[in-house]
Each structure stands twice: as C-alpha cells, then as structure tokens.
C-alpha cells in the first residue's frame, strides 16, 4: 500500500507544482496569435522562448511592420507585455488599430550602442521583445540573446536579418485595394507571407492574409457633431464610402458611377 502511495506521488510530482512557480506547461506556454496566422507558426502561436524573425521589407515586399503588429496583437490583448526596440518610425495608430494595448507596449526608439544590453534587460521582464536588428550583430551576441530568451521564456522577434531563428517570416507580396487613379482610398491589403525555419517549421509555408484587414475600414468612425452623417456601408456591396475627412476633394474628383455615402 505504502509502495503504491510512493509510486503515486512520484507520478504526481510531474503534474503538481506549487502555485507560485512559473507555469511550465500550461496554457501560457504559447502566446496566442490571430487565427489566420496560426498556420505559419509551428506551435500555432508564439511559443515562449522561441525566436521568430520577421524579414525586413524590401522594395516590392513591404508589409513587415504590419506583420509584426498582427503577430503581437492577440498576445497583447491577452495581457502580455510587449516592447519594441530601435524602431523610431513605429506607428502607434496602426498598432492600436491592430488591437495592441498601448499601455502594455513600451518603445525604446534609440537604443544606441547599448543595444544588446537593452534587449537583454527587456527579455528579462517583457513577454514579447521586437527589435530592429542593427547592421552589425555578431553571431555570438545573437546566440546569447536567443539563449536568454529561451531561458527566460520570452519571445524574441528580430526585425531584420537574423540567422538561427526558429521561424523566419517574410512578406513575399502585398497588394493594396481601394485606391484607383484619382479616387478612393487605401482600404485593405492582401499580403502573402512565407515562413521557413528549423525543426517542426522546416517545410516552407505560404499563406495569404489581409493586413490590415477591412474590418477597420468597413466601419466609418462616426464623428461627433451634426455635419458628419457617415454611416456604415453596405456589407457586401461595392460602394465608395467617403468619410468626413475626405469628402470634399473626393467628391470633386469623383468620376466613376459610384454611390457616395456621406456629406458630399
């Protein structure tokens, strides 16, 4: 009987952990990402301790920043803290639209020569660390940072060339919709993202997503005040929706036979 008890407790030792200990195998092991991006990542999310590189946009392949925002969005909304290092051009408006909680997002726009120290310090305390990769990063520094992230359970997202990442995401193509010659406005973009990596992610994958999607542009923000009556456009019908901002000039340059909704 006692022997069985010992065996039983030994078996439980794997399962039971003190409440204060960090959760090694629970639901927090993988930070969530948007459903359309789960197919790209080996664990269907941002696995803690992994390094997920995002290739920097090249001519004709823009969209890297939007891809990063999309990667962070779900994790941030679920309560994770994020930091972005070395991106002085970070568009906070786009981040908020993507669903990132700005009060849990810290920016270090100019890390300077202390870059490795700053990133290492952030890995200690922040769940997802996005960092622009400086031009000269030695392999040893890169390995040290990746090892630190693995040990601390943070997700390191280098933005730029990074050898040895678990997954490297790259925008292959982006096509904007909504802008014609002299009319319309940017509405959404179809982005083709490729993923290649090591281990479970070795097989290259490619998906198409909307970045940014059109859920934002479908709802026209209602401006306070009486002069702006912009409503919602019909769900599936093709209409040019002119917001209060763009109404006057767009109406002037309107040539096609589209319905204009709003104060033209």
């Amino acid at each position: 009987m006692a022997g069985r008890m010992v065996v039983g407790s030994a078996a439980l030792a794997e399962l039971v952990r003190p409440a204060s200990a960090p959760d090694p195998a629970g639901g927090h092991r993988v930070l969530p990402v948007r459903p359309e991006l789960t197919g790209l990542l080996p664990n269907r999310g941002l696995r803690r301790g992994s390094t997920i590189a995002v290739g920097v946009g090249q001519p004709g392949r823009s969209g890297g920043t939007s891809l990063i925002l999309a990667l962070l969005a779900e994790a941030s909304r679920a309560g994770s803290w994020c930091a972005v290092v070395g991106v002085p051009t970070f568009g906070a408006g786009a981040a908020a639209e993507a669903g990132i909680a700005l009060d849990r997002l810290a920016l270090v726009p100019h890390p300077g020569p202390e870059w490795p120290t700053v990133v290492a310090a952030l890995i200690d305390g922040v769940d997802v660390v996005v960092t622009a990769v400086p031009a000269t990063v030695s392999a040893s520094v890169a390995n040290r940072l990746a090892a630190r992230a693995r040990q601390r359970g943070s997700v390191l997202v280098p933005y730029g060339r990074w050898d040895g990442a678990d997954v490297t995401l790259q925008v292959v193509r982006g096509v904007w919709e909504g802008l014609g010659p002299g009319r319309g406005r940017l509405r959404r973009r179809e982005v083709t993202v490729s993923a290649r990596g090591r281990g479970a992610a070795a097989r290259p994958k490619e998906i198409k997503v909307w970045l940014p999607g059109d859920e934002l542009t479908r709802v026209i923000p209602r401006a306070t005040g009486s002069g702006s009556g912009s409503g919602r456009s019909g769900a599936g019908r093709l209409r040019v929706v002119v917001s209060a901002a763009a109404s006057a000039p767009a109406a002037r340059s309107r040539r096609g036979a589209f319905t204009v909704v709003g104060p033209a």
Partner: protein
Amino acid sequence: MTGAPARTLLLWCPDWPVLAAEIVDGVPATDPVAVLHANRVVACSERARAEGVRRGLRKREAQGRCPQLTVVDHDPGRDARAFEPVVAAVEEVAVGVEVIRPGACALAARGPSRYLGGEEAAAERIVEHVAQSCAVESQVGIADGVFAAGLAARDGRVVPPGGAPEFLAALPVEALGRPALTDLLRRLGVRTLGDFAALPAGDVLARFGFDGALAHRLAAGRDHRPLAVRQPPADLTVTAEYDEPIDRVDAAAFAARTLAEQLHERLAAYGLACTRLGIEAVTAHGQELHRVWRHDGLLTAAAIADRVRWQLDGWLSGSNGRGGARPARPTAGIIRLRLVPDGVLAQAGLQPGLWGETGEERERAHRALSRVQGILGPEAVVTTVLGGGRSPADQVRLVPWGDERLPARLGEPPLPTGPGEPALPAGPAAPVPPWPGRLPPPAPAVVLPTPFLAAVHDATGEPVVVNARLAVSAAPARLVVGTGRPVEIVGWAGPWPVDERWWAPAEARRRARFQVCLVDGAALLLAVEGGQWLVEAIYD
C-alpha cells in the same frame, strides 16, 4: 446650547477680491478697480468707492460713474488661493483657524488673548503679523459668536463679553446678508437687528421659515455654532543639508537613497503614498534645480531614489541622454536636497488588480523597463498615448515610462478592434473634438519623424502642383523620393486639404495630403506644402 457663545476673533480683509486680483494678477488695488460677477459689481477698491462705485451696480453704470475703472472678472479660486498665505500667517500666531470665506477667517479668541496678554494685544499682534508676512491690510473684530465678530471686524471693534446683543441691536437689518428677508423686514417696519430680535421666536419661525429663525437667533446674539477648525496639512517634505558639497554622481545617489527611505517612512506613517514628487537641489553657489516627477502607480523608496539619481546624474554630468533642454552644469557641489511629495493619496486607495492584470507581470515588466531607463536615461523608454490630431504624427504622444499617460489633445476613443469584440461602453461624456480632416483608417504603420523630401511628376515629366483652389495640375505618374530612382504611381487619391492653426502664424500649417500606391506595391502618404512634396508616412 447653554451658556454664552464662544468668544470669537475674526480677521477680515476689506475688499478681498480686489486685493486678490492685485496679488495674483498684478492689478494695482490703489487704482479704481471693480470685480464683477454676472455684470454686477461684487467688490471695488477704495478709490472706486470714492468715485461712487457700489456693490451691485451694473458694469455700464459703474464705468459711467468712474470712467478710468479697471474691471476684473470675479474668480473665487483666485480669491481662495491668494488667501491661503494669510491663513498660514494667522496660523503662525494662533491655532484653530476657520476660513469663513476668502477674505475672512475666525478663531477662538480665548487662547491667543491669554497667551498674548489681552484681546486687544492679540488682535494687534495678528494684524501686524499678517501685514508683515503677506503685506495685506486687515481688521480684527472680537465678539461672542462668529456673526457678531464679523460685524465688529468692520469697525475693528472689540465687543465686551455679553455685549453682543446690545452691539447688534443698533445695526440695520441689512447686516444679516439676506436680501430677500431684509427687504421684507423693512416693509414690515423692522429696521434694526434689535427690532427683529425683539419679535417672538415662534412667530418668526412660523412667518419666515427656518432660515428666518436662524437669522433671528443671529440677530439676538445667540450664535452657538462652533468653529469648524481646519487641519493644517501635514508637512511631509524631507530635507537634507550636506556640510561637504556633493559633486559626484555616486555620492549623490547614495544620499538620495537615504533621503528617499526617510520620505517613504514619513509617508507610510501617515498612511499615504506619493504619486507626484518634486525634487529640489541647491548648490553651494545657490543654483537651484527643481523638477516634478509623475508616476502612474505609487513611488516606492527605490523608485524615489532612482528619480533623484537620474535628475542629479543629468545635472552633475552636464549631458546625458538626448534632448538639449538640459540645464547647464552646476558650478559647485550640492549642499541641500529636498524631496517634496506633491501629489499624495491614501495608501489604501490603490490596489493591484484581482485577476493578475496589474499584478506580477506588470511588476516584472516595470522592473525591466526601469532598468533600461537606468541604462539609457528616463526619456529613452516611452509608451505611446493616442490623442486627437489630423496627421498620424500629431495623434501620438510619447510619454516617458512611468509618467502619467495623458494625451496631448483629446481625440476619439480607439476604434473597436476585431470583428467580434463589442464596442466599449461610452465613458464619462467629455466633449471630444471631432478633428475634421483627419485621415481615415487604416493608419500607416510607419510614421516618419522627419518627412522625406520627394518630387512628383506627371506623365509628361512636369512637376505636379496643387494650386490654392486645390486643383491638381495633372495626374501624378512618377514619384522620386530623395535622390532615388523614379517609381511609377499606379493609384492616387487627393488632395485632402489640412489648414491647421492658421490663427497662430508660428505654428500654422497648410498642406494637402495624397495617398499614393506605387507599382512595387508600396503605399505612401504624401503631403504637399508650399510646393514641396513630402513623404509623411508609409503604409508598411
């Protein structure tokens, strides 16, 4: 309710709104000045009174009687602010002061008159002290009860104990300060407080209601209301003097830590916590550096020490971090450090979230970000706050980590993100400016802090211009950014005009925006300002 009303000493500053205007706004009170509220004179200066200006006059009539009259708007906040030093001066001589209204404060006469040797001596002493420390003229009245003392102060009289009813009996009913009641009493033939006090109390209550009954009691000198004494605020400031001037950062940091712990202990003793902290340092040559640090959570002892260290670090080492707004290097070491807790609140008022939201994760992130601040300086780690504005850069304010997250300008609340998420319920209805002309979503993911210069050409190679009537000379066909190669434009929309702050010439900005799509798939936000094309943001 038994016994006589307490002996009360009342300090009254005549024409206080006029004096407050002089103290705060620098309007000389020796000139004819009138303070107006709702187009009626509330108070006027001595010279204005000599010209015939009275309380209750209309503005036009007052100016008719005294053409050189300076008119000041009534501001109760200004009156109260200016009166605070006077109250502090009175508190230096006597304790237990009640502020009746800005310009008048009362205290129990018993203590000071015993201590200073008689009521007249106490009154003289208080008036003198107020005049010396605040340069404010005042008068003192002493009587039984606040009401009688207030009336005695107008003549600067000391009414003997028990003499309040006789003193009041001779005064007209206007002294009650109740215009409607006074008017009625006059028409009933009751002209003095003595006449009013002689009426039977029960009949007064039945005819004039509770307020009339209270006025009746006051008129009879039965003013039993005790003084509502104010509690002087606790002095939480901690100061340290150094015999040996501190000129090294590490020594200053060490001194700061001790001082921070001292402050923290003192705050904890009162059950308070600090959310805003002023740090003052004085050098041996008398240079002063003062800065207020805000914090959205509570400042712990370590956080206070960090802030002292950052401030002194930046100051003593002359230059640390970017931003050229640093003060010049001091010429001598620091001899005095002061920590002034500026915003304090009860410790129990802040409590971490129940479901972890602001618990351990926040604490961990906070430590990491504070560490980075320690490496790079406090302004190197920022969070963003979205506010109102027309361009993507205007809508964002960068707030150093740990400071209060307030937008520079009010804007719309963020859009509901994601299809399934319900819209947030509307918060307290603050008036939100509409920002007409702002860009529709999606917002650009890359916002350039300094725009790139660009050139836009039409199909024939001529530069595209936008005239004052917002007509585009030709369809944009090619874009050249900086010295790069021309790229073909496949889609464009605009011009969307923005004419901002035209009333302030230094900040005025008039530009027309375009969204363009290039042949390689990139989308840009262009602006043309004074004929110059700029790339403002990239839809990356």
